[in-house]
């Protein structure tokens, strides 16, 4: 299940409050500002800092 486009347009990182980039596979939301990556599960963005993945760690897992 992919994220809804209308929702994506108004989503923000809970830390930086900046817009997010959708990963190429559509499963993650990336904030370059806070360097955090948020999962999308069953179409639900999980925008919790406690469950976010550090950007460098996520980039390694994608390589």
């Amino acid at each position, binding site marked *: 299940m992919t994220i809804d486009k209308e*929702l994506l347009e*108004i*989503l*923000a990182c*809970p830390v930086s*409050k900046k817009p997010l980039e959708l990963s190429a596979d559509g499963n993650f939301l990336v904030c370059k500002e806070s360097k955090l990556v948020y999962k999308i599960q069953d179409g639900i963005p*999980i925008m919790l800092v406690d469950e976010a993945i550090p950007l460098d760690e996520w980039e390694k897992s994608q390589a």
Partner: protein
Amino acid sequence: MADDSSKQRRKVQEIYSGDSDYYITSTPHAKSSSLTRAAEILRPAGGVHLDVATGAGHTAFQMAPACGWVIASDLTQGMLESTRKNGAQKGVANYRLLCTDSENIALRDGAVDSVSVRIAPHHFADVQKAIDEMARVLKPGGKLIYIDNIAPEEPPEAKRYNDFEAVRDPSHNRCDSLPVLVEMIENAGLRILYTETIRKRMDFEEWVARPHLTDADKADLRNFLDDPTPAIAYWLNPRDEDGAFCFDELEGVILAQRP
């Protein structure tokens, strides 16, 4: 404070993950008069609506027919699965689910036309921060409908009342009085448009029918209601009515607008 907030969030997540379907049918959440009053008072007219700490989504789905679409948001992912079930049962389609913390809402500034929060802030670790966030995501002219159980104004009586609620629900953090809530909403830069108080009747046996409560807990709660201070007697009005022992909870309803 950050540690206390994290602990409180984890406590809420643990309790609501295991008990989420209960809130689809729970009387105070699914059937209390504040559910219909929320939409009557807010009067949403199209646009995007955010329901904070949606639980099983009752308030979000009450707003949905009058909105372009609604965001049903909650801290607990398991609870959002119950929201989805409830939405399917009600035949509501114009909603999206968002897992977010009410004190760090994952939306851009001025993203939504209206916001609701109902019978939830007493679980929040930092109510002022949550209200600040609700104000931030509102468009200028957008409205907030804020509904929660309220405590007596006198601090010792408020403490007694909050201690009573915390025995029954370990994720209960604090109910505030209506004037305190009004002050916090004004502190967030919103203008108060309207307030009211609703009494809701709680059947004691139904209220204590929670799996984690022991017989000793239930006896303590009953003793509190059988021997109340005068202020608590007025506030909760414990009584036998229609063959059942019952009492009232008071809900404060506040409508506010971002200038």
